[in-house]
């Protein structure tokens, strides 16, 4: 059995966090989403992996190389243009060597249980389904027993909350199904299967797993996905913790990181390598901090995802927020969380207790206030003392 991971797309709805990496390479629990997937497969003995890569493919190939480090053997197939997942599969098909195969979407966090449920319960072509609070963002299925009788991509009329996770098992003879799609226009697997189902050409089984399946569709979803992925069990300190700091619960601190005196850190919290935190910084639960991050004295960070090489100056308050790579905030960044309404791509979202989202390399002056729900693009410059709300394009300058 082989697995095909579809990782060629960008994940546009997560912008600005997909500027320099595809969605699958965003770190949750300080591990890329794709690594969670590879691990789930390898834990089930599925080691032969074909990864379809395209958008910012170098980041994926650098991380996984030939897969040996992860107990897998990974081959890469390049899909240079976004021609849809059916085309991606068609390109991977010659590498199947006649074997049965799994298809896994490369942008959801899954665990080994989900794959083992699929492998245990599969019966001919099989799809893993899940319940969703926002089914309209996915392919929604209607089932008769465990057989799928209807599959509608992003339905406009409400039709239940059972959705397609984008994870399938197919016996090898179904590989031909995708082969014909090489030259077709952008086409998703869902569309292809939907047509096949309505024409009764395929008998697709639905498997509902108790395993983990987390998807981050929008930037604010990243925090929950991160929190779920932070299943730390013990305290591991490889760096240096100065005296009078308190680490409570599962706190992991990477090599070369210094936690200066007087910090209070309440797990689960993971802090990467080479960071400089404190003195007197408070970091509260469900926070992930990447490599080379610096957080100045007297700052408060709660339930955040802080990506690598970010700098948060002294006296800052940042809650339920996503801070991109290399963001540089001078002293006194105020980014609290609250219930709010966000307008994005002509859609309105009413969100509960959300902080701010700041794209990579944005620089922020002193005493800046950013309102809950704000989505600040990459490479923005925000001058001292201003107040920012709503969404900002990349490279915006706020004076």
């Amino acid at each position, binding site marked *: 059995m082989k697995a095909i991971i579809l990782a060629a797309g960008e994940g546009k709805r997560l912008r600005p966090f997909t500027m320099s990496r595809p969605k699958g390479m965003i770190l949750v629990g300080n591990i890329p989403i794709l690594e969670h997937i590879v691990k789930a497969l390898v834990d089930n003995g599925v080691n032969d992996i074909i990864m379809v890569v395209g958008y910012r493919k170098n980041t994926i190939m650098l991380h996984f190389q030939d897969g040996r480090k992860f107990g897998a053997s990974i081959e890469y197939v390049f899909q240079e243009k976004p021609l849809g997942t059916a085309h991606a599969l068609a390109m991977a098909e010659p590498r199947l060597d006649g074997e049965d195969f799994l298809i896994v979407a490369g942008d959801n966090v899954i665990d080994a249980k989900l794959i083992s449920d699929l492998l245990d319960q599969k019966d001919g072509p099989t799809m893993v389904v899940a319940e969703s609070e926002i089914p309209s963002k996915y392919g929604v299925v209607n089932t008769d027993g465990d057989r799928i009788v209807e599959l509608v991509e992003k339905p406009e009329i409400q039709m239940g909350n059972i959705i397609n996770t984008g994870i399938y098992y197919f016996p090898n003879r179904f590989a031909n199904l995708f082969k014909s799609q090489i030259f077709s226009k952008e086409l998703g697997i869902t569309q292809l299967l939907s047509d096949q189902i309505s024409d009764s050409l395929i008998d697709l089984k639905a498997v509902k797993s108790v395993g983990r399946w987390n998807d981050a569709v929008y930037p604010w979803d990243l925090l929950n996905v991160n929190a779920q992925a932070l299943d730390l069990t013990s305290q591991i300190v490889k760096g240096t913790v100065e005296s009078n700091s308190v680490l409570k619960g599962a706190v992991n601190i990477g090599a070369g990181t210094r936690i200066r005196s007087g910090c209070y850190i309440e797990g689960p919290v993971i802090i990467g390598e080479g960071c400089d935190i404190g003195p007197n910084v408070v970091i509260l639960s469900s926070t992930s901090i990447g490599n080379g991050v610096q957080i100045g004295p007297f700052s408060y960070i709660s339930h955040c995802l802080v990506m690598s090489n970010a700098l948060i100056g002294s006296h800052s308050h940042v809650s339920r927020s996503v801070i991109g*790579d290399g963001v540089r905030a001078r002293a006194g960044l105020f980014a609290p969380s609250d219930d709010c309404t966000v307008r994005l791509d002509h859609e309105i979202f009413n969100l509960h207790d959300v902080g701010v989202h700041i794209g990579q390399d944005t620089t922020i002056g002193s005493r800046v206030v950013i309102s809950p729900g704000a989505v600040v693009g990459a490479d923005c410059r925000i001058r001292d003392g201003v107040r920012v709300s709503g969404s900002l394009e990349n490279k915006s300058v706020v004076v």
Partner: protein
Amino acid sequence: MCGIVGYAGGRRAVDVLLDGLRRLEYRGYDSAGVAISYEGLKIFKDVGQLSKIQSNIPNWEGGMGIGHTRWATCGRPSKENSHPFTDCSGRIALVHNGIIENHLSLRKQLEEEGHKFTSETDTEVLVHLMERHYDGNTHAALVTALSEVKGTYAVAAMAEGDDHIVVARKENPLVIGVGVGENILASDVTAILNLTSRVIYLEEGDSAIVSANDITIFDAQGNRAKRDPTTITWSIEDAEKGGFEHYMLKEIYEQPTAIHNSLLGNLDEIYAGAIIPDIDVTSVKLVACGSSSHAAMVGKYIIESMAKLPTTVELASEYRYSPGTGENPFTILLTQSGETADTLAAAREARRRGCRTMSVTNMVGSTISRETDHVFYTNAGPETSVAATKSYITQLMAMYLLGLRLGTMRQALDRAEVRNISTELRSMPRYVNGVLDEASEIENAVEMLASANHAFYLGRNINYPTMLEGALKLKEVSYIHAEGYAAGELKHGPLALLDATTPVVAACVNDHTREKMLGNISEVAARDSPVLGIGLEDDRDLAAITDIKINIPTVSPILSPVPLTVVLQLIAYYVAKKRGCPIDRPRNLAKSVTVE
């Protein structure tokens, strides 16, 4: 340079040797060959690619053999001149890396004694000397033969009927991989890692007897010696391409991680002496070859400005023959491989002069690390492309850390300055990623260079040596004649060479030379030369006087060589790609230059 592999154990030696030689391919070669102990001693060698040898070699079983890739130095590339060589009787086979200086006189003697030579090489005298002394003890024959030659060597030999290979080294690298029921030896660890991660670095003058189950080592005096194995933490996979078109591109993309690793643990310990202990330094000399010498030149600006110490830079190949002035500067030697022949000789010369020495190298346990008082390991990981990229950028990191360390030691830097520089250094992986994110813009911008025969690279201040490095990169991989120049020197010659067919690459950052640099670029543009400017994003003045501008992130001027270097690497890579050059193995070049 030449590569050596040897194997004794349970596997098919032909397969192990060819695999090992393939991993040494990056060192450059024009011919290759193996000797296998199988129904006597079998030799197969030829000019050309290893793949050709692999498809033509007979199906020899046999679990012991030696192999060689040759990079011609003495005698042209040909089948006759390729290794292994045998003695007249065909009972002893030998491979060699290095130079035998007195081979002409020895050859004359041996020919008079009746030995028949089949090649033009210096190496062949070794095997005939062994034949002269051979009485059934191959190790003794090798040691006696080597006592009669002048020169440098890593050598492996075996005789018909033996169950062991004999090896020796002097000023050329040789490592032994310690396996279970098998042992392997090679010119460097990349050829070994597939079989074992436990390696013994032979010391200067050592010789050894290597069989499947045993390794016996002798020092230069012939006494039994104990050499402890080192465990290599890289895996072989680290040195493979993993989906990338070229090693060079992969290694360029690995730089953010390499920078992170080289800083890790050091930045935090600037005051604690992680890099060097508190020592009394009044002046510094930096010594290196090739790209490393450019890192050294950048280092001069860094150390002078951070530590306020008088600093000089010398090429290793010049320094070692220079008279010396009686002063004893703190002498820092930079070499990626730790085996560069001239830099090793310079280290010995520095010690002879009584200088305190420090090496900056990427190879743990390499020769230079054992021959200097202090070592800084750059932690770049294995670098396979001949053109140095991540090893260079981590050498720069070493220079910044050393500048900070010397600056704090001498109290030339106050704590606030140290903090500001450290903060920016910590973010450096992100700045480099920012450049990599824009790689496609650089790919589009280099069209003007791809069709040129000549190019000039101009910079000032700390970016003058950075542009020297940029020009060297272009020369190495794209075969375009490129010259790096201090922009202020333009009027003293090169301006005469500029016209519409000679593109100029010019770097300009926000330091105190900015106005002068803009003036120089205007002078160039006035001679119709197409100008590719590299500068800060908001520098509209630069954009106005250049044909194409590539942006680098805004960092302090003293740190600007880091993002600038990455831009220059990508320029060289994409130009070479457009010109269809063999990027990872440029003609006539070798990765670690272990001959003088």
